[in-house]
């Protein structure tokens, strides 16, 4: 099957700072990729570069064969890039339902389907975005991204700052999305052991460069590698 996403020699940053240098990766249709790494190695920058909110220095980003690297964010979104930002960035003055419908595009992920998927959101559909708890905000951020019916879903540290019980619930959601629904996506995570079982492949960044790429299952089994790059101890 052809690659949905192909990044070649991407260097990017913010303002004068260069964060990513010469990153390449490929993602086939239906594949989920985990991007791992310590704090500040450029994981978020990678996501932001695909979304289009960084300054690109060089390299190409092909989505379904079309180079989107020079397009503004709204056009990338129209071509199928869906984004769940790290800070969630719920529209606080809009209601839950409006958060979703304000950006929705036609496709299998209708409002109804998003609500079926996240019953909690349905309950709170008329509340203001600002009134949601952290976990609910994360659900809404994901639901909102799904409603744009993306070909590629980007999740930036979805479990960050959530209570353990909520994290478990979230992981079930992600499993359903990437394992059962077969969505294509990239998940940036700190908690490697939690996310690797969900994804197909994994990639480790260090100082803006790719230091390891391989199957998720293999990485999960390679305790030494996890220890070396991520400081994750066995357990």
């Amino acid at each position, binding site marked *: 099957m052809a690659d949905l996403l192909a990044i070649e020699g991407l260097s990017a940053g913010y303002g004068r700072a260069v964060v990513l240098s010469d990153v390449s990766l490929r993602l086939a249709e239906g594949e989920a990729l985990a991007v791992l790494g310590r704090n500040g190695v450029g994981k978020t920058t990678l996501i932001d570069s695909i979304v289009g909110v960084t300054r690109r220095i060089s390299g190409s980003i092909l989505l379904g064969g079309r180079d989107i690297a020079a397009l503004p964010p709204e056009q990338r979104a129209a071509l199928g890039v869906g984004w769940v930002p790290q800070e969630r960035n719920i*529209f606080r003055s809009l209601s839950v339902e409006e958060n979703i419908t304000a950006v929705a595009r036609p496709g299998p992920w209708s409002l109804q389907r998003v609500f079926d998927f996240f019953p909690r959101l349905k309950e709170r559909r008329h509340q203001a975005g600002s009134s949601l708890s952290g976990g609910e905000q994360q659900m809404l951020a994901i639901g909102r991204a799904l409603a744009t019916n993306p070909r590629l879903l980007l999740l930036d540290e979805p479990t960050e700052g959530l209570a353990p019980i909520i994290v478990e619930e979230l992981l079930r959601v992600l499993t359903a999305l990437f394992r059962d629904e077969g969505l294509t996506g990239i998940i940036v995570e700190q908690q490697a052991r939690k996310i690797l079982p969900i994804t197909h492949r994994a990639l480790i960044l260090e100082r803006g460069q790719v230091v390891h790429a391989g199957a998720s299952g293999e990485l999960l089994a390679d305790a030494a590698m996890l220890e070396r790059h991520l400081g994750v101890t066995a357990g």
Partner: protein
Amino acid sequence: MPSATLLGQALISGVLAGGMYGLLALGLSLSWGLLRLVNLSHFALAFLAAYLTYELGTNYHVAPWWSAMLIVPAMFAMGLAQHWIFDKFKVNELASLLITFSFAIILEVAIQLYWTADYRRYETHYSTMSFKVGPFYIPVLELILCLVAGVLAWGTWLWLRKTYVGKALRAAAEDADIAAAYGVDHKKLAYLLSGMGAAYAGIAGTFIALIATLAPAQIWTWLGVVFAVVIIGRLGNPLGALFAGMLIGASESIAMAVLSPAWAPVVSFSLLIVILLWDPEWL
């Protein structure tokens, strides 16, 4: 203590006068709240529309509602042109104050150049018509103004609530970068909104021509009170703007009926300061 009839009549005339505040505040509130552009030339545009209505009506005998058909689209186009400048030069909130202030001055000079500084009055037989309900008199023109303002405010409110474009605009107003990343083309929507704001100024101008006597310097008479209305009604909230306008109109009127008419000018800003003291995060 004034009689109930007097109080009721004052309340009616205040609410109806407040309709004009609300109508003028509508466009201003939209561009300030949703585009973060403070458009001081809004008043100048309204007066330009009023002068055009006067000109067409007096010299070519075109009824104001027909002139409006011409003037309102023209104002919409002016709004687009104005926004082209904002867009082209990436104007921010502070710069927009300065630029639109300058636009207003230029328009004022242009108006004075063509129509002179002398008063212009568009006399119509219906400008002072009214009808009686119980002991109260209701002026027809102001009532129509309020109905139009109400329909516009309510329609705009629904549009912002219910349509994709409206919700996208609100999302973009809150966080333009995030909204763009979700595919909201903020730029196009901003043009639409700027055009709408100017068109609303045009509609307000049609009524100004019928209700007020025109002089170029009067562009500035509404500024203070309408600013207060925009804030009290909460930025970007069309229904809020209308209600705040009527609230201030009614307060001014009651102050004039019960206290001394000389108190009226302080009412709006006192109200504003009280509201801001009560809730500093009102905006």
